[in-house]
């Protein structure tokens, strides 16, 4: 087993990976940009190396610098987390060439699956159905538009080189097409260092369901059931759960087999996620495969009891999986809420500033994978994800009750967050029933935001009272400090001087 691992990432995922390493007795090396000198992943690592200025292109995406630091530290392997270099074939190859181990799939599998267009082509060899769309990245805007027209609007423009909703745009009509492609390309370039985008049919009323995969180097590939990820805003997941309230045992079996076939088709090794769209008739289509750890992986960990990061590390060190498909048992229900530094009331625009007060929920079945602390500055440089609240209980209803309770006791002061937005989703009758699809947010947007801004007379009185009190305090304080400051600096000093 490795003795030392470098984590080429920041934020909650760096801390998450660190935890599994420590539990396995492995030392952890952190890397950080100038903006992250006092970030939690630096404070709690065994070693930490500065790799460049704040912009990620000059730090967290800097292959050479990271490789140099890894060699200097004596790390035997590199864990890329998600985002940044996690799906970068080039980087994976360089790590191997430097004599270290890349904790992730072989470069060839990243190449096939990481590139969304090649992935779609490769899937044609299998029996797994694929969503209609372009087979190549967009090279020529006119040709691309012709394809879009042929498929029929609305279409999705998606990043070929990455996932997580970045570089993604929905286009409803031909006239919006060119501008949307431009935006998606720029966003992809900035997020993944790869500006290529492609087109996919936008299915209506679909469920976004994904299967967790684990494959070792000894030819064993298994799946760890599904995650339901249909609660999205801005094409980014906000709430995920497992099991999916939409999937029955028969469909689960079929999709699980398709997921394993997908992984085997590209000789996959490590942890990966096969994403499907499922329409309301329970037809499913392969969407893409994420060749890395997924943000929402803890949902699967909570119901299976398996530490996915520990498995990634064991697989990378050459060990076979210690369990078979039939050993995977799902216990209870888990739901995850992503806590972003965003102002839900202002169309989820990023919110920055100092966290002046922080109370993280805890207790039975309550897990927070985060990387924040009171007194910390949230900067505009990186992804706005502050962390993920994951609640587990013996059944779905109890898990949702627990989640509501945890969101109620979650307090982050000084910046805006999605805590209350998540709470209004969890409380929503349709979500409670489990009868939702990817249009949930668009459909209930008004209602959810009305719930957020609903103020009872009691709340108004509290708000008015606090403002009054605050202004009153400020007035008194400025009086007091004015006079005391002046006093200390001349009058009182003078008096004291006489007494001495």
């Amino acid at each position, binding site marked *: 087993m490795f003795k030392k691992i470098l984590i080429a990432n920041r934020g909650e995922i760096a801390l998450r990976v660190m935890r599994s390493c420590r539990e396995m007795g492995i030392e952890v090396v952190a890397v950080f940009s100038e903006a992250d000198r006092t970030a939690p992943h630096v404070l709690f690592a065994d070693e930490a190396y500065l790799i460049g200025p704040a912009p990620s292109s000059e730090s967290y995406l800097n292959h050479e610098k990271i490789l140099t630091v890894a060699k200097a530290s004596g790390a035997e392997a590199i864990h890329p987390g998600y985002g940044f270099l996690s799906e970068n074939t080039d980087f994976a190859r360089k790590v191997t060439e430097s004599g270290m181990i890349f904790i992730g799939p072989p470069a060839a599998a990243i190449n096939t699956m990481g590139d969304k267009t090649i992935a779609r082509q490769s899937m044609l060899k299998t029996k797994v159905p694929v969503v209609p769309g372009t087979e190549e990245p967009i090279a020529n805007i006119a040709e691309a538009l012709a394809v879009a027209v042929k498929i029929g609007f609305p279409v999705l423009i998606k990043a070929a080189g990455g996932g997580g909703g970045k570089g993604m745009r929905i286009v409803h009509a031909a006239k919006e097409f060119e501008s949307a492609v431009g935006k998606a390309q720029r966003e992809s370039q900035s997020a993944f260092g790869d500006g290529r985008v492609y087109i996919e049919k936008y299915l209506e009323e679909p469920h976004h369901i994904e299967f967790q995969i684990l494959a070792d180097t000894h030819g064993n590939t298994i799946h760890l059931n599904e995650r339901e990820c249909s609660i999205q805003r801005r094409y980014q997941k906000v709430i995920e759960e497992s099991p999916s309230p939409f999937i029955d045992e028969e469909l689960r079996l079929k999709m699980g087999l398709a997921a394993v076939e997908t992984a085997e088709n590209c000789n996959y090794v490590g942890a990966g996620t096969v994403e499907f769209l499922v329409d309301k008739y329970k037809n499913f289509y392969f969407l893409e495969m994420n060749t890395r750890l997924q943000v929402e992986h803890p949902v699967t960990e909570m119901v299976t009891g398996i530490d996915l990061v520990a498995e990634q590390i064991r697989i990378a060190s050459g060990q076979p999986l210690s369990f078979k498909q039939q050993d995977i048992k799902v216990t209870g229900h888990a739901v995850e809420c992503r806590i972003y530094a965003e102002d839900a009331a202002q169309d989820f625009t990023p919110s920055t500033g100092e966290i*002046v007060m922080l109370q993280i929920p805890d207790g039975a079945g309550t897990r927070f994978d985060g990387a924040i602390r009171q007194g910390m500055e949230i900067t505009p440089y990186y992804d706005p994800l502050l962390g993920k609240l994951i609640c587990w209980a013996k059944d779905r209803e109890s898990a949702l009750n627990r989640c509501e309770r945890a969101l109620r006791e979650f307090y982050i002061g000084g910046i805006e967050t999605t805590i209350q937005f998540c709470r209004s989703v969890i409380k929503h009758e349709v979500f409670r029933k489990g009868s939702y699809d990817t249009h949930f947010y668009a459909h209930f947007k008004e209602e959810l935001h009305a719930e957020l801004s609903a*103020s009872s*007379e009691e709340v108004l*009185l509290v708000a*008015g*009272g606090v403002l*009054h009190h605050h202004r009153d305090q400020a007035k008194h304080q400025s009086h007091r400090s004015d006079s005391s400051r002046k006093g200390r600096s001349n009058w009182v000093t003078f008096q004291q001087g006489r007494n001495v």
Partner: protein
Amino acid sequence: MKYEINTPKHSLQVEFQFDSETLIIKTDKETLSFEAIQVQPGVYSVLMNNRSFVVGICPIEANRVNINGTPIKLELLDEVHLHLRQLGWDALKETKAGLISAQIPGLVTKIFHSAGDQVKEGDPLFLIEAMKMENEIKSPVSGVVKRIDIVAGQTVEKGTNIIEIV
């Protein structure tokens, strides 16, 4: 002293009165005892008739508070302002609609216009990138671009003026 608490949906007449450490709040329906204590700078613990609330004051917008995690925006007018309003002054209309500032801190990657351009309400004005997301800022008014205070490629703080439209 008489006050008015306003939100876009509600308006409430109240009277605030200090009774040593406790604030007495009177509405037309009830009388409440209100006590606030600072927990951290800008964060108060409030007990109003023994109901407990944690309330944060927004460090940037003076009229925005966060009550048990729910953000609300309100206007608290005292007698002086209430009187001014009777004379025709409207506090809510004080902001200049044509002066567009950055609502988020970030990098301005593109500006679509130059000084002198005609713009219509809803036209894209500029792109601002923060936390890896590109945000398109649209014009809230129709008019002529009077001046542009920054150039593409510049990093701006929240509140920095970008474009003025008249």
